[in-house]
């Protein structure tokens, strides 16, 4: 099972970080305004940015 496990983390480590970041973003703006809002923009901005970067044609 060893090689499989390595595979798992290799594939899922980045998506997991993004998932946690989005979750923090979704939650933070519920807690307050100002800095909390800004945190949520970062948390939701990262997945939006990564997706759009993938869509743009590379040269």
């Amino acid at each position, binding site marked *: 099972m060893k090689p*499989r496990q390595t*595979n*798992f983390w*290799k*594939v*899922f480590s*980045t*998506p997991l970080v*993004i*998932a946690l970041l*989005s*979750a923090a973003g*979704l939650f933070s*703006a*519920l*807690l*307050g*305004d100002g800095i*909390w*809002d800004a945190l*949520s*923009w970062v948390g*939701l*901005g*990262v*997945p*939006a940015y*990564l*997706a*759009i*970067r*993938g*869509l743009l*044609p*590379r040269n």
Partner: protein
Amino acid sequence: MKSKTIRRWSFIHTWSSLICTVFLLLLALTGLPLIFHHEIEHLLGDAPQVREMPADTPRLNLAQLVEAAEKHRPGDVVQYFGFEDDEPNAVLTIMAKTAGTEPNSSHTFMLDARTGEALETPSANGGLMLFILRLHVDMFAGLPGKLLLAFMGLLFVVAIISGTVLYLPFMRRLQFGTVRQDKSSRLRWLDLHNLIGVVTLTWALVVGVTGVISACADLLIAAWRNDTLTAMVAPYRDAPPLTRLAPATRLLDIARDVAPEMNPDFIAFPGTRFSSEHHYAVFMKGGTHLTSHLLTPVLIDASTLQVTAVGERPWYMDAMGMSQPLHFGDYGGMPMKILWATLDVLTIIVLGSGVYLWVVRRRAAKPLPTEAAA
């Protein structure tokens, strides 16, 4: 992962998403303008402008506002008064033929809290935005429509989970974010489907689950009426119907006395879905940012104005309260709305590319679902 396991997950992913795709596309497309409904209503000139008056202009009391409302729509009764933080000089007013009239037959407008002048809110009673909202909420099919959409939302969640499981075999040999652009259109869209799907995962799950909860709101409210409300008003079970109501004048002060840390959100008049036949229900929201989405009803006897009970909030009503901001994306300013719209469009792309990949796969002679082995 064994190829048999992959085939099973692939089957689940294909069919859960295919069944819900049409509905999800409808939801995502109608949801897009709804994110900006406030701004659109302003642009269309449908948002009432409360008149500029000196800041210390005294406000009418609630009984005077009820009177103003009844003068504005003779023959109707007030169902609800709503209070908004960003417009303290206006009271959202909902009236109908009877207190028990269902929401879609009610009439919504604003009352100037200082003059009692009625300001119409056309977008709350008809027009394009309400049409889009009804499409989004129940497709004009009432409770069955809502429940169908809730079921589609559940399928969407299944599609997201199975898609995440499949992400592993598909991406085993690829760096995160790889988009193969030069091989074939199918590979490019497969990579994009995987990339956009996995980065929008959390957002889509949260919006999906909170949408399902909101779609079940009618059932949750009915459950709340059945257990919590019925228990609170048990002593009134055999009381005769009220012939006249005590004036609403002091309702907010009475509610603030028993819930001093909270602020009023709305008042449900006797006989509506959020109150009993014998009570005014003042719904108080929490005083902090987080708890401002959680409502506590204060039931006030509509003939003696004594507080009958301060409601406890069952967990499902809290879930319903928290679902609203997390579904609407209206709690983090304009940048959040723009991100919400972006993620919504990205979800449309994931849905569309999913259908495209399925069509291309079907056209190919061999329908073996073992991409991963390639």
